[in-house]
């Protein structure tokens, strides 16, 4: 297996403001994100040879047609991808593979999600999600299900395994959220941009014990897009392209739901996707070699488990590293420099590319007040599903 390393370059990216975009349709967001990406790459729809659109819950009438109609992208191959919360990352992967194969020279990829037209607070929780955690799709013979409920179980088990009292464990998690909110204040495109305190996190209403309101990310609309080209063409588009070093997805067979060997203190899919990505990129010591990471902090405990599964921290070592400020913007390995899902919210099908957008800008030195020093290898981690069974994408990019 050759791998993807240094075969494909990102030459343009765009991202809308994430949030409750009451005045924008999915199409409006697509036009804005794609226009920014086109401008960044110096191209137009005419130059694009194939496109991939990632979207999960958005009600787009026909899978691929809206993109052609909205962008007036005429008679090109367009494919819609969905892979739960890792949808945009998987769309990116498919587009990159097409470019790496040599069949396509210039590809457009975007992820979009319009959640706030639904009238619901929170995500749809019905069969799409429940089929996996019950007996069979369509039966609704399933435990009552919400995302915070499932991720809270990861916290319960983690606290139990490492002997943390609820207060100790919740404080450790609160510090991660405080960090992300601090970073988010410097992100003009974030949904939430205000500082919070550990005390506020601990005293927030309980959503799913032991997680409170401020342990959870919000529900937002958003869109992000990228233009991918062959490596040897990249410098024709811009002087500072960003190259794909690794791109891996691991899909778990729901062992957390069925197999007593799975102890709900880590997410195997994250570990496996990380391992595969490190191998593909030739990384031996992730904590030293990775400059920064955008990870899937849908809930505070998710980010804690990611530190360990991606080997940024030792097993059980999260608390020590959090207390040491390891993952802060000025720390040894900054994580969620833009504020993460915590501040951007989580438009399901868009998040993965929003993460790539941040590391792309950081590598180009364009991250403004949140710019990290020596931004070289950037990692994105995008998780779809629950700790018991999920799709995890790990992408590594660099100059």
């Amino acid at each position, binding site marked *: 297996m050759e791998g993807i390393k240094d075969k494909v370059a990102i030459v343009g990216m765009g991202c809308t403001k994430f949030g409750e975009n009451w005045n924008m349709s999915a199409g409006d967001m697509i036009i804005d994100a794609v226009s920014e990406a086109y401008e960044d790459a110096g191209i137009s729809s005419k130059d694009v040879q194939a496109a991939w659109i990632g979207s999960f819950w958005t009600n787009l009438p026909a899978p691929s047609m809206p993109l052609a109609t909205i962008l007036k992208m005429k008679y090109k191959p367009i494919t819609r991808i969905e892979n739960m919360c890792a949808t945009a990352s998987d769309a990116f992967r498919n587009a990159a593979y097409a470019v790496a194969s040599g069949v396509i020279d210039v590809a457009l990829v975007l992820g979009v999600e319009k959640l706030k037209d*639904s*009238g*619901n*607070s*929170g995500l*749809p*929780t*019905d*069969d799409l999600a429940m089929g996996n*955690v*019950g*007996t*069979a*799709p*369509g*039966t*609704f*013979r*399933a*435990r*009552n*299900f*919400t995302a*915070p*409920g*499932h991720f*809270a*179980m*990861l*916290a*319960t*088990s983690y606290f*139990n395994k490492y002997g943390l009292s609820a207060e100790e464990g919740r404080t450790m998690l609160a510090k991660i959220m405080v960090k992300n909110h601090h970073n988010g204040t410097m992100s003009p495109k974030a949904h939430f941009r205000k500082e919070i305190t550990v005390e506020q996190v601990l005293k927030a*209403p*309980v*959503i*799913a*014990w*032991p*997680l409170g309101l401020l342990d959870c990310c919000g529900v937002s609309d958003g869109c992000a897009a990228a233009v991918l080209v062959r490596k040897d063409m990249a410098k024709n588009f811009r002087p500072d392209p960003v190259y794909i070093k690794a791109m891996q997805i691991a899909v778990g*067979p729901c*062992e*957390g*739901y*069925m*197999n*007593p060997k*799975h*102890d*709900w203190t880590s997410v195997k899919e994250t570990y496996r996707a990380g391992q595969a990505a490190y191998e593909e990129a030739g990384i031996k010591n992730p904590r030293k070699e990775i400059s920064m990471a955008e990870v899937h902090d849908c809930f505070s405990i998710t980010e804690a488990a990611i530190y360990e599964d991606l080997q940024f921290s030792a097993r059980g070592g999260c608390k020590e590293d959090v207390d040491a400020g390891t993952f802060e913007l000025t720390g040894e390995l900054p994580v969620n420099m833009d504020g993460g899902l915590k501040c951007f919210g989580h438009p399901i099908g868009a998040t993965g590319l929003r993460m790539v957008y941040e590391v792309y800008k950081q590598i180009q030195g364009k991250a403004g007040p949140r710019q990290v020093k020596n931004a070289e290898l950037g990692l994105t981690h995008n998780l779809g599903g629950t700790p*018991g069974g999920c799709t995890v994408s790990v992408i590594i990019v660099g100059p």
Partner: protein
Amino acid sequence: MVGIKSFGVYLPYYRLNRADVGKFWSSYQTSGERTVANFDEDTLTMAVEACRDCLGGLDKDCVERFYLASTTFPYSEKQSSALVATALDLPKQVLTTDISGSLRSTSNAIMLALDSIRGKSARNVLIGASDMRLSLPNGSRELEFGDGAAALLLGDSDVIATIDHVFSMNEEIYDIYRPSGEKFVRFWEDRFVREMGYGKIVPSAVMEALKAFSLNPKDFSRALFYASNPGYTNGVVQKLGFDPKIQAADSLWGLTGNMGSAHGLALLAQALESAKVGDKILWVSYGDGCDVLAVSVKKGIEQAQQKQSFKRNLDVKAFTTYQKYLRWRDIIQTDPPKRPRMEQPSAVALYRDQKSGLALNGSKCKKCGTVQYPAQRICMECESKDNFEYYSFADKQGKIVTFSHDNLAVSADPPTTLAAVDFDGGGRIMLDVTDRDPDQIKVGTPVEMTFRRFREVEGIRVYWWKSRPIR
């Protein structure tokens, strides 16, 4: 010898102080408590629980007929006994019948069962009785009713009690009744209900029955009478020559309320649980007539009494509130959460899923022995294909591996306690934890399985299983 081989009972975990209802409405306050089925229970889930208790430790493949008695079946057209039989994983050849229309349905079912056994067309007949009746709020019946279920296994050998005599009398009367399609039980003016209904029919039936049995009140150690409230029974039993305190007190009135079709059987189960060999029990069942049965307790009773399921069901309980009761029964409409509308289950998917879903069978790999749920065609350990046998999780106990209390999950009684449960003997299932005090749930809490009701959309009621702390 034809008689009772085993008995079972199910009382819901929740109780309601009757005084709370009076307080809520600023009206008169009655003493005692009544059972309240949880929001995830109904007539059929309670029937399954009582039948599981009854069949515990026995070979359920011996059951040849299953008669289910209730006045509150969820469907007018669709057989409840077939659904319950499937949840119990009884053989498909079992003759299933719903018997309904009166609180006497249960004794009717027993009489039909005895005929089947005596006529040699069946050796073992399972009887289930379950009811969850509703009366309009702020009325006396609401306080009098309780929810519950009971079960009997009748057979021709190894009996713990014989049924020696039966007598039946029918009567046409509008005393307590509920037209099809209506939710709440109606009743005529109380004096008529009492004087011309219970107070007239029961004494005349019992007198005729005793004459036919050639037995006297003093021959019985217990006489089990039930009515809407003890005010009805006291006068009647005295008139018939029974001691209302020693022989004929309805010991469940203050503890459970009147559990409809299941009440008489619950009284019988309670009496059997404390009976001595040689005791004779008179059992009187009322509703559009009166059935009278004479039961003699036999030697096998001591072993059956070891289960003490009645005492356990009575003792392990928690109190709910009247406000929750009103919500659980859809008596008041509450503001729905801003969440997606519940999707309709697929009848086709439910049909395919009955062995794994309704009967809670997982699979056990024949090659490596790994048990898993739901049943997997390809083993999660050794990946061998279509090489498994079904493995029942319904009778297994397990421990909570991890949990959360989820306030966001839409529920009539938040928070929803979610858990990963690892079973003794292997296997893990993701389950809700019901009938629990959230503060008592820990990593490692032992749980057992209980059959529960899930969503109902467009007339399709979904049933599956939950875990609960061992009762």
